[in-house]
């Protein structure tokens, strides 16, 4: 079983959540061998919005979460507004699709998982694209928008390089020096 973890962080990004369950994306995921999708939907999520082109769907409502089975594709999708075991979800995933929040990106990169960042074009003054662009330039992830997700899924994740760990004492040493504790 190969798992994709989709996360929108503490905000909401309904367009991304809905894009995942379009026929094209599901087909692509299945072709790439993914058959389990975990979606963290963020706030104000009311119910899964499955592409009507996908037939043979069963939806199961549990408390605060939905389990969807796409019988034709043998793909299961689990929705949750927030996962308590967020880090565990990333660890278990073979691929993470995330919104462009710096926190989420860093969490995934720290755990060295292949990452696709999807930018939300509906946000005004979206300076978060800046970071995604830079991290793509440095080959740590791929970034795209909802319309180009299918193409991006086909990219070669082998070519990505891990994001280096920061030197933990860099800032504290700098601070001590600037404040006069160390000369």
């Amino acid at each position, binding site marked *: 079983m190969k798992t994709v973890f989709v996360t929108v962080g*503490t905000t909401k990004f309904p367009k991304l959540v809905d894009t995942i369950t379009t026929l094209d994306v599901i087909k692509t995921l299945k072709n790439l061998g993914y058959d389990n999708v975990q979606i963290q939907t963020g706030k104000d999520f009311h119910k899964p919005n499955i592409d009507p082109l996908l037939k043979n769907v069963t939806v199961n409502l549990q408390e605060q979460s939905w389990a969807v089975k796409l019988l034709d594709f043998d793909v299961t999708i689990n929705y949750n507004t927030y996962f308590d075991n967020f880090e565990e979800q990333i660890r278990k995933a073979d691929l993470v699709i995330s919104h462009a*929040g*710096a*926190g989420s990106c*860093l969490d995934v990169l720290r755990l060295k998982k292949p990452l696709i960042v999807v930018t939300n074009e509906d946000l005004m003054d979206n*300076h*978060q694209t*800046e*970071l995604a*662009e*830079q991290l793509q330039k440095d080959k740590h992830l791929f970034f795209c928008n909802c319309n180009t997700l299918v193409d991006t899924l086909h990219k070669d994740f082998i070519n990505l390089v891990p994001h*280096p760990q*920061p*030197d*933990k*004492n*860099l*800032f*504290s040493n*700098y*601070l*001590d*020096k*600037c*404040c*006069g*504790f160390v*000369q």
Partner: protein
Amino acid sequence: MDIQLQIELTILVIVVVIARVLYLIHKITTGYSKYAPKRSKPCKTIICIGSGGHTTEMLQLLKNINFNNYSPRHYVIAKTDTTSLNKVQTFEASRNSKENRDYFINKIPRSRSVGQSYITSIFTTIISILYSVPIVLRLRPDIVLCNGPGTCIPICVLSFLLKCVFVCESKIIFVESFCRTQTFSLSGKILVYIADNFIVQWPSLRSKLKRAEYIGQLM
């Protein structure tokens, strides 16, 4: 005192104040105030906490600082931001119990909530500035640490003004957000003139401002 003398004195005071402000800005922007003189007494520190990503970044920066050098720590947090409050409390509690837990939380109203209209946000911003005044006046910090949320501006400006009138020697340390790889945040654009230390997290941003410092990967 006749009117003319009063006017002359007023002008004199204004000129002196402007000269002092310009002198300090010059000192700061030329990097003269980057390194403070040697000290061993702990620094009274104000830490401006923003929201969401800003809070996470700030706590990441603070992770390994020596609490004995930076104590007491006064966190300034928006009143309604319970998530950040929890993060700060968890962070302080996570440090070794032997270390000092000398920290305080100062709450100020949020200057602008998400989705709030522009007109009313002017009003709420003024309110939040007014709340910052007594905090800075009372604390007279040795250091102000901030990384970009809007709430840090009044705190920094007030600390700078106190420095102008010789009340305290606050050192303002600004770290631009990790998200900023090409452009500066509004806070960054303002604090360029009054932050003694101005750190960016990307070399590409360093090349856009002469006085910005890139000290390596922090996140």
